[in-house]
């Protein structure tokens, strides 16, 4: 039953990636050129909606959070730096590659998925000599910001949402975006 939910949620996830246009090379790379910020808008909207929903539900005692992704500062940053290179180079990420493969994009289905599987082999086989050392530095464990800074989590989530909405306002109304050069 749980797997059926996973499948349905996966379909909706892939569907949203397709509709947001994130399965296209130019959409992903142009967020790094600030000429099309759809990726940022999509990610931040999802993040804020889920944040407000989950923190409210937790306040009402209706959900328990699963294990929060661990914070180990050096590793989160080094991993992010490596990840950004791949994302700007290839114009996709793990989720959008799979969704794009489902759309019939053979570029994503064949070299894309082979690349992710090769990366998974490489990581799995070098894990023991790389990860424990990096994760041991500045490790805060499964912490969340409101607890770390001792702030009311609902107020913090609301403040975050307001900042995001202000950013969207700057992008869409005040034109905080670069013009696409003709290539």
């Amino acid at each position, binding site marked *: 039953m749980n797997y059926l939910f*996973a499948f*349905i*949620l996966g*379909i909706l*996830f*892939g*569907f*949203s*990636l397709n*509709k*947001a*246009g994130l399965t*296209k090379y*130019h959409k992903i790379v142009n*967020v*790094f050129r600030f000429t099309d910020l759809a990726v940022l808008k999509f990610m931040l909207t999802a*993040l*804020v*909606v*889920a944040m407000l929903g989950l923190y409210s539900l937790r306040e009402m005692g209706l959900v328990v959070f*699963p294990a*929060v*992704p*661990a*914070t180990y*500062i050096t590793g*989160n940053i080094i*991993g*992010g*730096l*490596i*990840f*950004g*290179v791949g994302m700007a*180079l290839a*114009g996709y990420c*793990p989720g959008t590659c*799979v969704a*794009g493969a*489902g759309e*019939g994009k*053979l*570029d994503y289905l064949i070299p894309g998925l082979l*690349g*992710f*599987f*090769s*990366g*998974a*082999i*490489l*990581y799995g*086989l070098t*894990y*023991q000599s790389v*990860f424990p050392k990096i994760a041991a530095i500045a490790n*805060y464990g499964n*912490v969340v*910001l409101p607890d770390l800074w001792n702030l009311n989590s609902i107020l*913090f989530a609301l403040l975050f949402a307001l900042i995001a909405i202000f950013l969207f306002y700057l992008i869409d109304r005040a034109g905080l975006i670069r013009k696409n050069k003709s290539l």
Partner: protein
Amino acid sequence: MLNKIIEYIHRDEWSPYIAGILLGVVGIAAVGISNNLLGASGAFESLIGIIGKAIAPSIFSNTYFNYVVPSEITWAVVLLIGIFFGGGLGALTSNTWKLRVQDDEQWKAIFGPQLWKRWLILFIGGIILEYGAGIAGGCTSGLAISGGMLLAPSAFLFIGSMFVSGIITALIIYRGRY
């Protein structure tokens, strides 16, 4: 009203805000129903663990594939299969589903029309992405969005550093055309 909704579903591209709200609701449902976080990169590791153990058990029976990532069909693997069909469903609703290669004009303007070049770069990009996600503790979905919605500091460190190196990489590739 209903007609408008149906017409919107058939559109090729949605407002990123509407698509983002949908993903946000999916993220809430994943926690509420299954007590799981959305993610993509971890499923590749589970899948390769299953395949690796079948082909070369001596190499793949290490700490990582035995204990860190379960080498079995996990919730995340089923989710990943769903993502594949979800992308397909989205394309079918807008009549854009098609077996194809090299369909991005901007790519061709920057890298040229050679297919081998595209496939090589996508392959290398996939390796870099999966390795980076491993070190960071997740990818755009599993760490940036799923961690961010729980307000985990790791998510914001990841998003920030991903943008820094992404911008530098784009600057190097695009140079005068950035």
